[in-house]
């Protein structure tokens, strides 16, 4: 009855691509997680359970090892319930969500916020301050002006762009920790958590797994973020292939992870072409224009919330300014894929935090071609 783990544990993210058209976020990636040659001996007493669930406009996948498949199923179901709750809370598509309520009312009066979301908003503003506004949760109006919300991409007029830019900027948001309230300083401000909520959901999912005693699992939010909890049987980490930014069928790096998360932002998932020019969905909040001169960024961090936000932030910043961030913040690894002058290949730059003090239970190795 016990099925041994598959020799090649590709979690079929390619299969989820049809669902991706719903995806509205600032950072995207395509990951191919694989377990490392699981020896049959170690897996004999273990069962592997994998299930997927649609939420937040993407597909979340959990793959977990344990001794009891029924138990794994129950825990995974709990994980998906928690993710659904977060979707109901943080969606900017659902009018019933807490986020929609904030966007509706926070310009008129302070709105009280659930503690978990309040902390996430505080973190978001911190990312904005740390990046000088390169990461910004108020880019919603810009995404809409460019047609990335419920629609086809389009080139906005100068007037539309100027109008959208007026309503962008994290400085428009005030958080009051004493009352746990949020307010906007003018109407028309809109929060979009697309660049951080899925990472946060992955972290919450991992917490549910840990709380239920699961020590070997992988959680992914579609092609966005992934967390490697422990390692699969017989391996010292989860192997994750990162796609070539120019070729969907090619892996460009293989990352081995343990108790760490990885996120990728890429210009290849959501974009449109006008007059032969490609416009991708990651916006520079300062100019209101899609970021050019970056193909994709990969960030490894102990937290998926962190890696999700930073992969977008670094995509906008490029290795120069991102490097400054890495000097001040520990335990991060970032890989940048930049267009090469020839246009046929890319340049790769890998940067690490100046300080690394990860516990021995964590592991990251990056092997690129």
């Amino acid at each position: 009855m016990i099925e041994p783990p598959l020799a090649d544990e590709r979690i079929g993210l390619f299969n989820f691509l049809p669902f991706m058209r719903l995806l509205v976020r600032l950072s995207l990636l395509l990951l191919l997680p694989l377990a490392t040659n699981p020896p049959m001996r170690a897996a004999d007493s273990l069962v592997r359970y994998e299930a997927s669930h649609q939420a937040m406009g993407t597909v979340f996948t959990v793959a977990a090892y344990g001794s009891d498949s029924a138990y794994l199923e129950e825990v995974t179901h709990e994980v998906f319930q928690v993710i659904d709750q977060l979707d109901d809370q943080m969606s900017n598509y659902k009018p019933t969500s807490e986020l929609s309520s904030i966007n509706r009312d926070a310009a008129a009066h302070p709105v009280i916020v659930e503690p978990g979301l309040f902390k996430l908003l505080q973190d978001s503003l911190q990312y904005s301050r740390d990046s000088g506004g390169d990461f910004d949760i108020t880019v919603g109006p810009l995404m809409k002006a460019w047609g990335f919300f419920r629609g086809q991409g389009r080139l906005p007029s100068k007037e539309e762009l100027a109008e959208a830019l007026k309503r962008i900027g994290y400085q428009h948001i005030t958080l009051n920790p004493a009352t746990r309230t949020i307010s906007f300083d003018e109407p028309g401000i809109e929060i979009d958590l697309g660049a951080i909520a899925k990472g946060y959901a992955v972290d919450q999912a991992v917490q549910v797994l840990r709380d239920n005693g699961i020590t070997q699992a992988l959680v992914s939010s579609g092609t966005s973020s992934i967390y490697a909890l422990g390692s699969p049987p017989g391996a010292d980490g989860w192997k994750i292939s990162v796609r070539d930014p120019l070729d969907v069928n090619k892996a460009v790096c293989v990352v081995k992870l343990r108790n760490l998360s990885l996120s990728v932002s890429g210009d290849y998932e959501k974009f449109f072409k006008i007059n032969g020019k490609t416009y991708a969905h990651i916006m520079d909040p300062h100019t209101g224009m899609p970021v050019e001169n970056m193909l994709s960024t990969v960030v490894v961090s102990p937290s998926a919330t962190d890696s999700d936000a930073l992969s977008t932030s670094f995509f906008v910043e490029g290795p120069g300014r991102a490097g400054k961030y890495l000097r001040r913040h520990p335990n991060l690894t970032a890989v940048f894929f930049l267009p090469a002058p020839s246009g046929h290949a890319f340049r790769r730059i890998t940067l690490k935090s100046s300080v690394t003090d990860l516990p021995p239970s964590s592991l990251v190795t990056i092997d690129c071609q």
Partner: protein
Amino acid sequence: MGNKRRVTRRDFVKAAAVAAVAGGAKPVLGAPAILSGPNPGSTVHYGFIGTGTEGCNLLRHLTTIPEGRCIATCDIYPPNLKKGVETIGSNPQTYTGSPFEYRKMLERKDLDAVLIATPLNLHAQMVIDSLNAGKHVFVEKTMYFKEEEGGLIQKAAQANPKQVLQIGLQRRSSILYNVAMQMVHKGALGKVMFVRAQWHRNNSWRRPVRDPKFERLINWRMYREYSGGLMAELASHQVDIANWAFGSEPISVMGTGGIDYWKDGREVCDNIEVIFEYPEGRKMLYSSILYNAHFQYNEQIMGDQGTLIITIGKGMYYREAAAKVTNGKAKENWWAGATVTEHAVQKGIPLFPDGTEGGKQGFLDRELLYAKRWLASMGIYEYEEPHDPYWSELSNFMASIRDGKPIACPMEIGMADARAVIYGNRAIDTGTRVFWPKKEA
């Protein structure tokens, strides 16, 4: 039965200790609460009993309702107690250790209200004790477990008429559902004769349990000592919709069910199939299963002129293909081309726009949106569900206490719902058609 139930759940269950979730004892009498009558502008101080999964879901919504403040929580299972305290974040005093510890909480004079989200078999005693202690009460559906408990709660409520007693059927607080019911009651569907509803899942409906001794405590829904199964936990929401649409309780119920797929030691059915009969031949056909999730959950309300398919967050209206009768002298005047009725008949019309209207960014669109919201804020016009119905029902509860707002889901609705659950389960258990008692004239 698939082969995924590899582990012998039955053995696991056998090993499980009987959890200490028994009810029954003498009611306590506490001092009247501060807010026995409406007091606009005040803060409702409440205690929360049962901070498990559903309790924490409610607490999460309560964190954004400033009209109330949680000053106490109560749970006998330490991890849930901890989770509840973390979720609400207001540093409440905790009551734990014994199933009757909540009575100590009820003695507090600074407590205005109590919210109850415990296993079903505990509801009645906790509601009665709380009412008699002078507290306003919100209790999760199903309102009570055993038939005789309804009258006891009613008696306690009648003895404390100034206190709010609200039942947690959150669809009653949904604007979408209220609009749907206006359509039903104002004739948009014509003569409504039939409701079909289902709640289908494809999972065991069990919660993970690490230590077998907590099995019955955590998975209380699986055991008849505490639970009315799918009928009480899922169907209760939807039978209430049929009651609401038909404006009546059922008069009889027949049904079947069984433990046919998840043979894991559970005592409640993993599938129920039930027909409720209402006055004038109207009927509700209901199913809940745990081995296919394709149809998920919704209610389909059918009249001779239209159909509503509704669930939390989405409602669609479909017209019946209409026939028109006029006198025989009408002038024939036919036009060729697409008809508008095809859309209304086949594709349906959403009750509210699907999602926000954020895709449109023109000046007029934005102004129109603000105008709609302004009208909606005054209750003149409804065009969207502005909050999660869980949030709305809890906000309504606070408003009923503070401001004297009508109770969104009062006791009578909860009692009618509980009767349907109890008789529905009786019909399944006995294999007979169960009739509602004749009402006294």
